[in-house]
């Protein structure tokens, strides 16, 4: 049994098959939501971003060409939507503290050191300039290559490498301060 692949699903959706569109939604909803959550750290915002992403996706579906990979294309929509969202919604320090708050509230009273480090790391990532933050989240958070991340962000591969380098320097510094 050969599985249906994304390209076929997308073709079907483009041709107006609503079942295919529903399957695209089901297939990618969690991916989109998780990236959105990592970006903003607030469940409700991540839900809103995910919703927005899929509406945009429907609108733009016809412009999607097989030349770019669907993954790259979708990630780009997520990142752009998340950025727009952050702009609308006060400043990013709000995210930083919201993330810590939400992480704590899911597990009040007891946070062991290991988890605390993760939470701090996220807080530090949220403090980074947006361009470094997106590079870090795509490369380290989603496991993409610098090249793939560059395609999503729309810059040169070396630029991504540079931003990662810069970001890591900052993270390292802040990590050392905490210890």
């Amino acid at each position, binding site marked *: *049994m*050969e*599985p*249906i*692949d*994304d390209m*076929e*699903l997308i073709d*079907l959706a483009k*041709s*107006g*098959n*609503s*079942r*295919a*569109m529903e*399957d695209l*939604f*089901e*297939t*990618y*909803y*969690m*991916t989109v*939501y*998780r990236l959105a*959550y*990592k970006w903003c750290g607030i*469940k409700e915002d*991540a*839900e809103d971003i*995910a919703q927005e992403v*899929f509406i945009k*996706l*429907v*609108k733009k579906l*016809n412009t999607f060409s097989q030349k770019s*990979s*669907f*993954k790259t294309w979708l990630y780009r929509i997520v990142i752009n939507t998340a950025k727009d969202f952050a702009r609308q919604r006060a400043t990013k320090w709000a995210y930083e503290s919201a993330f810590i708050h*939400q*992480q704590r509230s*899911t*597990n*009040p*009273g*007891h946070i*062991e050191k290991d*988890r605390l*480090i993760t*939470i701090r*790391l*996220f807080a530090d990532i949220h403090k980074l300039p947006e361009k470094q933050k997106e590079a*870090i989240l795509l490369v*380290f*958070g*989603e*496991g*993409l290559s610098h090249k793939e991340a560059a395609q999503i962000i729309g810059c040169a591969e070396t630029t991504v490498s540079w931003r990662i380098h810069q970001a*890591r320097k900052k993270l390292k510094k802040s990590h050392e301060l905490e210890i």
Partner: protein
Amino acid sequence: MNKDEIKHRLESVEIPEPGQDAKERALKLTMAEFNRLPTGTDQKNIKGISMVGRLIGKLLKGGPAMRKPLYISAGLAMGFMALIIVIIPRAGRFGSNLPADMKVESLLRSYSPAKAPQSKLTNHSAPSPVAAMRAGKQSYKDIAAAPMIKGSKRDGFQDQTYVGRDRFENFKPNPVQLVSEAPVSTFSIDVDTASYAFVRKALNRGVLPPKHSVRIEELINYFDYAYPIPGDRNLPFKPTISVFPTPWNPDTKIIHIGIKGLEIVPEKRPKANLVFLIDVSGSMQNQDKLPLLKNAFRMLVETLGSEDTVSIVVYAGAAGTVLEPTKATEKGKILSALDALRAGGSTAGGEGIRRAYDLAVANYDPDGVNRVILATDGDFNVGIRNPEELKGYVERKRKTGIYLSVLGFGQGNYNDALMQKLAQNGNGNAAYIDTLNEARKVLVDEAVSTLFPIANDVKIQVEFNPAEVAEYRLIGYETRQLRREDFNNDRVDAGDVGSGHSVTALYEITLVDSKGKLIDELRYSDDETADKSGTAKRSGEYAFLKIRYKIPGTQASNLITEPIGTAVEYSSFSKVPSEARFGSAVAAFGQLLREDPFIKTFEYDDVIAIANESKGKDEFGYRAEFVNLVRLAKTARSM
């Protein structure tokens, strides 16, 4: 903080599940937008009869996906319904109770139904849970076959619960049964221990494990119990039974059934033909996955005898044979092949599992143990995507004498439900490896028992005496229930007992004269009928135990029977042998974690007290670790 650590932390951060309503809203809005736009409308017109012919042709072939949506009037569709349902075995994502015309309409609307959507994007680190769930749970189940599996829980993939990206099968605790209505309880034994390791991992992180990850029988069976082994060497095991007051309920009693398998002395053990099937996809690169896995297999290789052989197959981007069958005497060759494994590769697929089985077949030893050991974090992109198909494949291979063991690694992506199903269907065991210590326990200390079965298809049936027992419930084994008639049917598969394995089952019973009965007596029940039908009131006998098992390699089962009565009863809990007391403590712990309704005032501290007193020799410190876990559970918060 180095690269890997950042990666690991970004991956392991806990992400709250999105609200179901938020997701539904998003889907509705998305589809509304989809239907509003011109792309979604231009082809939604009625097509002629000729399309039906093409449709059926395509469905039959299962070929390239239907490119165009179809709409066929209900009348026309009805005419074709029977035909379609018969010829498309995998058509249904819809329950069979939908009105027939709706079913057909939906079916016709769908694109090629034989295919599960595959996500390229998410394969990168994991198959999309949604897609996988759909494939497993609802989408592509057999319509035609549905009535046959109905009522047989063990065959179907049931609902699953997501915790992060980890997947667990949903189940409810076994209900209290009225002996007068259901006097017989039947289940398959379970020697898996995966649930315990998963619970431990969660508690060590300071969170309570998700309820559905707690399978009480696996917690109990994690521990080795020193039950007596049979004096008669022809018997693979013998049951050890005791009855005693329930520690958490003064009005009920516990029936404790323990089985300990004979230990095969290492020199006498059969040759092993092992194929490691190792997931090396990108998601395996965390410290607690591939690196741990390598160490675990290294330890296993060290324990092998000179006649044993090992092969290694990996899957990720492409499945590949890393090591052809190699004798364990060439240890260096095996170890260096293991060392060379790297996580990477993002796409799914390959022929991983087929290739592993092919190697096992190529090197098949009729007198030996032939086993594929699958190690993964839950990314089952092993070439067969549909879980039902995968299950069927493993089951067919089991019949050829090749068994499957499943070792789970890591968190965040762990597909517990599928692992369990696979191991059950492959006559294997599923274990979850969270630490090197656990790897040692599973692969070294218990290597003999997990690799060499001494009894296959072990089923337990207990018949309760209505004259003594009013109500009973089986603690745990929810996912292992068998039908009453399955007990004597040798074609029905069940769990295996390995050399030296111990298996424990507990029933909580309420006696006829107890005031703790949960179910009211019937006002109109006819007591006399029971007497007339000749039910002898055999006082002093609570129940009758029957165990069926097969000697490995044989097809006909053997039967062991034993009455359960006052002869094995202890009047107070403190007099009970420590093994049974410890088992009860673990059972109580599992029920507390699951918040089962049957435990009322019993608390974690009570569990600690019993466990502490019944630790026994505890050579490897597993029981002491248990006590620690209970302490952690006291302070942990729910996820």
